[in-house]
């Protein structure tokens, strides 16, 4: 029997497969199935979309025969299957649901194809049906590229460099030109973009809710989600808009930083970044081309995300140890020029530079603390440790990555505010550089709508 993993390209849903079953009285039935999905070396799943004769038959008599075509070579395979169970939620279901949405969009069947369940089958046998076969163009192994990416990751000694190196390595070694890293918010129902590459606007600081689009579903179900034909159902314009509406966040005090994704995405792949069973974030890649990412690319990204997760955790621990350094109290030079007004809304820590929205949440609270201390005592040197210990910043306890918040803040400042800069001065230490006089305006929480802190 051929190894199932070697036949995964058959299971991309480009050409529908057919499934034959028999009723208890022996009457055969054959129907088309949108998705034959690789589960593992011993199992496949078929998409259950409509209550049908196939469904009635497998519940009474679990044997099924599937005919599938390789979409490029035309090689035909026959799968001898035994129905085991139907999953209606969880990782497998979410993967198939997203993939089906892509297939439906490609086939002009959006709104018609809808996954009711993932029917899981044991593979009893696989037969190469005698017949012709076209030669495939040679496809080089992705392993050397994966090795190159991982070797670059393991050399990084701080988080900002790690993220930049990852995106650069994906670009050069795997030719993935549009990618971003999102990290979880402490409370664990949202993600924020901390680094991106290949977009007109970096989108650093933009947020995605769990369950929204390919990225949100990958985070929620903790599983890679891959779409070979992009679909409106999983598009981000829509996801972000709906999330904002659902959470009543259309008010002017928390403007949304636009998500950086491609306007015309053809293929999308989101891979969870996790270590020690804890979700750290999501690595997301996309391409304007359809069918750009195959199962093999998913394997490659999963391996890279695993290395990335460990590197993030190790660097985080390193920073904790180095945090003990005391910040020097050297005064910074007096800034000159016209004053910039910085407004801080205490309700959800949103910060505006003159009239432009800059940042909110934990990163907003950090910036406000730095600016206040800078104004009070002309201090410019700070440590991660003092931020971590400051009750005003209220870092969420679990899995909080202070370093990531600082990168986010540093990048938003670099993009949006020419007069304030954050420079790293060593592990766990940084300097606040202010080049113009600042007028700090605190606006009390009562002014803002009641809202939980992001």
């Amino acid at each position, binding site marked *: 029997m051929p190894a199932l993993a070697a036949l995964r390209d058959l299971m991309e849903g480009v050409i*529908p497969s*057919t499934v*034959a*079953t*028999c*009723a*208890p009285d*022996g*009457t*055969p*039935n*054959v*129907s*088309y199935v*949108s998705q034959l999905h690789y589960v593992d070396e011993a199992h496949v799943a078929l998409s259950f*979309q*409509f*209550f*049908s*004769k196939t469904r009635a038959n497998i519940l009474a*008599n679990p*044997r*099924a*025969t599937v*005919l599938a*075509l390789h979409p*490029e*070579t*035309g*090689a*035909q395979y*026959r799968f001898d299957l035994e129905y085991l169970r139907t999953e209606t939620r969880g990782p497998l279901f979410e993967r198939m649901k997203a993939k089906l949405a892509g297939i439906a969009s490609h*086939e002009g*069947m959006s709104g*018609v*194809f809808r996954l009711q369940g993932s029917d899981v089958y044991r593979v009893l046998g696989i037969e190469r*049906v*005698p*017949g*012709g*076969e*076209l030669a495939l163009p040679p496809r080089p192994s992705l392993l050397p590229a994966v090795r190159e990416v991982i070797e670059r990751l393991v050399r990084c000694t701080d988080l900002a460099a790690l993220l930049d190196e990852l995106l650069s390595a994906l670009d050069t070694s795997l030719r993935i030109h549009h990618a971003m890293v999102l990290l979880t918010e402490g409370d664990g129902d949202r993600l924020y973009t901390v680094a991106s590459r290949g977009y007109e606007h970096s989108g650093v600081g933009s947020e995605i809710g769990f369950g929204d689009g390919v990225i949100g579903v990958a985070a929620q179900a903790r599983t890679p989600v891959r779409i070979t034909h992009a679909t409106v159902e999983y598009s981000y314009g829509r996801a972000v808009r709906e999330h904002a509406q659902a959470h009543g966040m259309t008010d002017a005090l928390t403007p949304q930083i636009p998500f950086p994704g491609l306007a015309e995405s053809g293929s999308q792949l989101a891979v969870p970044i996790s270590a020690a069973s804890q979700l750290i974030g999501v690595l997301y890649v996309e391409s304007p081309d359809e069918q750009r990412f195959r199962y093999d690319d998913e394997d490659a990204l999963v391996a890279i995300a695993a290395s990335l997760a460990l590197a993030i955790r190790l660097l985080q621990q390193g920073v904790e140890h180095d945090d003990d350094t005391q910040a020097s109290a050297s005064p910074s030079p007096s800034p000159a020029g016209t004053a910039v007004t910085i407004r801080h809304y205490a309700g959800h820590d949103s910060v505006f530079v003159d009239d432009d929205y800059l940042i909110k949440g934990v990163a907003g609270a950090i910036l406000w603390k730095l600016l206040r201390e800078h104004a009070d005592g002309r201090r410019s040197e700070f440590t991660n440790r003092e931020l971590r210990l400051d009750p005003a910043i209220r870092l969420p306890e679990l899995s909080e990555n202070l370093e990531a918040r600082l990168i986010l803040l540093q990048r938003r400042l670099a993009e949006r505010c020419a007069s304030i800069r954050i420079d790293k001065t060593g592990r766990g230490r940084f300097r606040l550089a202010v080049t113009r006089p600042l007028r700090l305006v605190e606006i009390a929480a009562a002014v803002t709508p009641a809202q939980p802190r992001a």
Partner: protein
Amino acid sequence: MSEPVSASTLLDAETIEFVTRRVSLTVAGRGPGNRPSSARGCGCRVTPDGRRMTVFVSRPQAAALLHDIEAHGAIAVAFSRPTTHRTMQFKGSDAQVLPLAPGDAQLVSAFVGSFVVELSPLGHSAPFVHAVLGARPEDLAAIAFTPSDGYAQTPGPGAGARLPGR
């Protein structure tokens, strides 16, 4: 007493036209212990009155199916047109494996040609279609049966509905 119908209402002229060109077709049978068998078909003809349908398969691709049909006569055939997703299934219980009639090899060749035309806008080449359906004439087998049931299977709310007929 109603008049006996002169032609099958299951397979009217339009349906006959649908099943005989530009469709993908899959044939299923019933094996020992109610295990299904299946093979891809590479052509179909229907008598003008719609009462008898003949589908063609490649013997090397359909060994188990042909064996099962000879043993039980139970058959199901699904037809689907890739560009429109229109899908229908017909079933019968009197299927027989027969030798090819004169003209059948040419009919199969024309059917494969029509499928090349159908798949071209979807990005599949003629060599691809020939790799899938290109059986040697001497390998072809004909399976003939009387369609006794038909079902609409086009994806959507009406999928699975029995076609009006006898």
